[in-house]
């Protein structure tokens, strides 16, 4: 019984001919490496000497003995939170505002999306200069003009601000992408629904919370999942701008894993950290589905 078979007379071979090449590439590049990481996480190996089976030692070390790991984990959560606020909050705000605009929507969409086209290396360069204090960068100059001179600082070498400073560019970069998606969902909300609500005297806020948002909820869940999984894999910008420093104050799990693998060549422990990152992503997706779906049902 095969409900979605469209061709009545296709051979088993033909299925394999079409299915095997994509599965081969996908297996080699994605599936097999995941299993390999899982396997390596039970070994101690520097890439040269013999691999040594250590059982759960790497996991014990990670959870119990490694302060940097926990620091990086908390940093990664904060990084994620900042990205989510900027990306999803910014996206929802701009998309909602955009629907009340009559002209120039296309232009604004294009302009807003521009940063998404630019490589992270270019963005890292750009923001190093925006944050700089000598010569004075855009941010410090702006603060100076607003009379907030006391806030001027070298944003990337101040341990209190560096994490926010490396998170903001990532948020800035992709907010346009999420705005597009949410905007497309918002303009698909049936006009009759909104008009009926307005006739009933609903305020803008009620209109948004009672009509628009419930309607776009499925798209909102998708964008939240996208933004969260992208946020958890964030790497380029912190790696390029500060390499996790000063100290460990902008270290994320991804940068820590990368350094463990390719600077300390501790392949086993690096694999343990990447297994943790994968589980973290799966848990995050599960949580989002659980929380947002449950709310929808109630």
């Amino acid at each position, binding site marked *: 019984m*095969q409900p*979605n078979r469209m*061709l*009545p007379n*296709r*051979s088993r071979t*033909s299925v394999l001919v*079409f*299915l095997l090449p*994509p*599965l081969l*590439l*996908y297996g080699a*590049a*994605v*599936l097999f*490496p*995941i299993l*390999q990481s899982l396997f390596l996480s039970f070994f101690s190996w520097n890439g040269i000497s013999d691999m040594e089976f250590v059982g759960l030692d790497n996991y014990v070390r990670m959870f119990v003995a490694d302060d940097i790991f926990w620091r990086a984990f908390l940093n990664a959560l904060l990084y994620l939170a900042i990205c989510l606020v900027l990306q999803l909050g910014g996206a929802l*705000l701009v998309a909602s*505002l955009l629907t009340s605009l*009559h002209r120039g929507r296309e232009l604004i*969409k*294009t*302009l*807003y*999306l*521009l*940063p998404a*086209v*630019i*490589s*992270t290396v*270019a963005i890292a*360069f*750009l923001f190093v200069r925006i944050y700089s204090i000598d010569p004075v960068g855009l941010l410090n*100059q702006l603060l100076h003009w607003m009379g907030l001179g006391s806030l001027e600082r070298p944003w990337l070498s101040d341990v209190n601000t560096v994490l926010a400073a490396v998170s903001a560019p990532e948020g*800035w970069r992709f907010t346009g*992408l999420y705005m597009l998606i949410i905007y497309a969902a918002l303009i698909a909300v049936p006009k009759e629904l909104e*008009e009926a609500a307005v006739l009933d005297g609903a305020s803008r806020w009620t209109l948004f919370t009672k009509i628009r948002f419930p309607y776009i909820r*499925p*798209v909102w*869940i*998708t964008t939240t999942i*996208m933004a969260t*999984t992208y946020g958890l894999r964030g*790497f380029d910008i912190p790696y*390029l701008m500060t390499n996790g420093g000063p100290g460990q104050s902008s270290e994320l799990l*991804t940068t820590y894993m*990368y350094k463990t693998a*390719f600077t300390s060549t501790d*392949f086993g422990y690096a*694999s343990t950290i*990447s*297994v943790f*990152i994968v589980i973290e*992503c*799966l848990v995050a*997706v599960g949580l989002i*589905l659980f929380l947002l779906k449950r709310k929808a049902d109630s």
Partner: protein
Amino acid sequence: MITQAAPASPPEVVPPRPEVSRRRRKPNLFRTLSRVLIMLIVIVQVYPLAWLFLTSLRTEEDFATGDPFALPGSLTWENYARAFETGDLGRNILNSFVVTMGANVLIVLLGMMAAYAIQVLGFRLSKLVRGLFLIGIIVPVQIALVPLFIDYSAVNLLDTYQSMIIPLAGFSLPMSVYLFCSFYEYIPKETYEAASLDGAGPYRIFGLITLPLSLNTVVTVVLVNSIFIWNDFIFANTFVLSEDLKTIPLGLQNYIGAMGKVDWTATFAAVCVTITPLLLVFLVLNKAMIQGMESGATKG
């Protein structure tokens, strides 16, 4: 992922004019406020890029001493000359082009084949295969770095174009499979039945019916993936060492080191040169690209 049933190629998004606009209301506070707010946010998005370009035209002294917001006192192309002298920008752009093309060919071709097998041919475990592809959307790319590094050195693939193309294509494949699958759902069964009655087998039907019909989706898949592949940093940085193979992100990163000191105006000139190709494509095709992103996400 979580999707609403959406038509395969999204209809032209024409923002319906709200009723209010025709009634010529007196200017209202909310509307004015939201306009100002939108303008502010757009400035935050665009000004840094404009500033990047302006800085690339400044003289070095002007950049080192001046107010960063001021317009450059005099324009100079010298930074561009220095940028081309120090880096191998042409080579970097060519490499990025090769990697982007290679990965896109794989993503499109293999994505169509997998979707054809899953959606059109159908087989018992097709649900399982779909699920396997879902993993690749959620899982972060970093998981593959260490294993691929080890595997590549075992089969001598380190420091090649393939070492970048394989993982870039592999991690983009799931999205492509999903896009093609959701498009193939909308090709009516009768089309295939008619062709089958005429004696066409699965291969001919793929080449003569499915492939030509997929062109719109191909454009979407290519545009969306190209942004990520063209700008990939992490795979290139991990697997490529030789100057000859460096893509744009690596070439740019090299810039600073190669110059001993940080020559910011020349670096910004290099940045401007390297973002131009993709930016041009984006500005020319932005309608198609924007639609691609919208549909890519709502269906992914």
